[in-house]
């Protein structure tokens, strides 16, 4: 009976949280169309999420591309299809690994930072301070962060893919000795600009929305304690990562993105 009760309670809590998240996203959407535009804060957030994530995204991209190129070359060589390495690397990176791994990396670096920053503002009374100054914290704090994440995610994903393709090129061409023309031609022939690239950007945008909403929601609704800050940060990384992976499957399977 206890297990059933626990399951029921958890299901109810999930529904409650989803409802609250929906209301919260509605507030962010409403704040987005109300003046002022908060352009300076938005640019600051793009810097925090985008520019400060560059090293980890570029480095991860290069290493993922290198490993992908190496493994693909080894596997395809068995069937005499080593010339298709560029195609395998390009398609898998652009359609899947680019947006998904970028979203996971940005969740760990910037999503957790956003949740921790907002949660610590809750804890130290800064959010209540804004409310007492008749300044909507959703408009002043949350909205620029959410848009900054949404804006930066596709750009970071694109950079991840570029560095991954370059990483694959470096390993396959310079280390394993594949002809550079074969690698690039295979890549060029298999990647469709409209379908593959637009799908990649769509995925990155969707993941940007998901990570931004979860990170800001977890931070904003955190308990005003040290444990609350910690729970918001951990919760953001866990929930956003799982949501990105589930959503990737849904987008790919049901909508063919």
């Amino acid at each position: 009976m206890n297990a059933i009760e626990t399951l029921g309670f958890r299901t109810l809590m999930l529904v409650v949280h989803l409802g609250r998240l929906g209301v919260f996203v509605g507030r962010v959407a409403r704040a987005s169309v109300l003046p002022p535009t908060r352009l300076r804060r938005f640019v600051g957030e793009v810097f925090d999420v985008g520019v400060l994530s560059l090293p980890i995204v570029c480095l991860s991209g290069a290493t993922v591309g290198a490993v992908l190129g190496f493994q693909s070359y080894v596997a395809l060589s068995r069937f005499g299809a080593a010339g298709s390495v560029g195609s395998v690397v390009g398609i898998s990176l652009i359609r899947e690994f680019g947006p998904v791994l970028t979203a996971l990396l940005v969740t760990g670096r910037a999503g957790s930072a956003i949740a921790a920053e907002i949660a610590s503002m809750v804890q130290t009374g800064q959010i209540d301070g804004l409310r007492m100054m008749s300044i909507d914290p959703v408009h002043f704090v949350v909205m620029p962060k959410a848009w900054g994440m949404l804006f930066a995610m596709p750009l970071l994903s694109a950079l991840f893919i570029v560095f991954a393709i370059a990483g694959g090129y470096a390993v396959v061409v310079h280390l394993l000795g594949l002809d550079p023309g074969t690698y690039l031609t295979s890549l060029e022939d298999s990647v469709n600009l409209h379908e593959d690239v637009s799908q990649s950007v769509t995925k990155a945008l969707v993941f940007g929305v998901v990570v931004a909403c979860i990170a800001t929601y977890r931070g904003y609704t955190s308990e005003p304690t040290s444990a609350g800050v910690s729970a918001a940060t951990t919760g953001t990384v866990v929930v956003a990562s799982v949501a990105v992976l589930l959503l990737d499957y849904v987008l790919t399977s049901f909508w063919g993105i």
Partner: protein
Amino acid sequence: MGGQLALDRPLAGDFHIAFDGVRLSLGRREVFRGLSCGFLRRQITVVLGGSGAGKSTMLRLIGGLERPDAGSVRVAGEEVNLLPERQLFRVRERIGMLFQGGALLDSMTVFDNVALPLREHTRLSEAEIAERVGRNLAAVGLPDVADLFPRHLSGGMSRRAALARSVVMNPEIVLCDEPFSGLDPLNVRRIEALLVDLSRRAGLTLVVTSHHLASSLRMADRIVFLVDGRAVSGSPEELLQSPDRRIVDFLAAESQAEFDPSRLGDEPSSRPAAGGGAS
């Protein structure tokens, strides 16, 4: 003084802020059990009470940051417990609040913190804002910290900078949550003088929560004492002469801690109560 303390005094008079039958529970703890009291216009009211008595919660109810389970909270004629958040902003423009930790935005300099309400709610030019911020920072004795971030300030300096921010929009009401806690005597005196000066000069309704008995008695026009989820209110003299055992015990403990450090090693029973008529 011949007056007598009133328990949950009926709401008659020129109250700027009025609590009427307020009940509030936080978790399983019942903080207020039918609290009724008022805060007079242009007067300094100090809210006293032990830890967990609900002093900070009282200020949060006035600011609409908390909502009561029952009863009403009227601020300048508006029933804030019924207003949605958007409409509360209109009421809060008439209120300045000094939070216990200052609540300065740590991503902004002191100047930007104090300038924030002006930039958000007025059409003043940057030059006018700079002039007003400079004037307010000078008034709280911090003319040279405008370019510093809150993390570079001491507790007392943070509190004074937050005070400058809370009054920069010329509010009618200023709420101060434990402005003296954790400060050295010099800073206590300094902030106390600032609050009294501000209140008298600008005709503010000032509500201060405090544990600090000496400064409370010096600055208060009226005292609201929170006990068992209800309010006992009166003048400082009435408080000192109260025969109520709970008030006597509170005054004795606070006065002992503040005034008589040489007796810290004495037995509690040997400590005298504050004020001549308290016992």
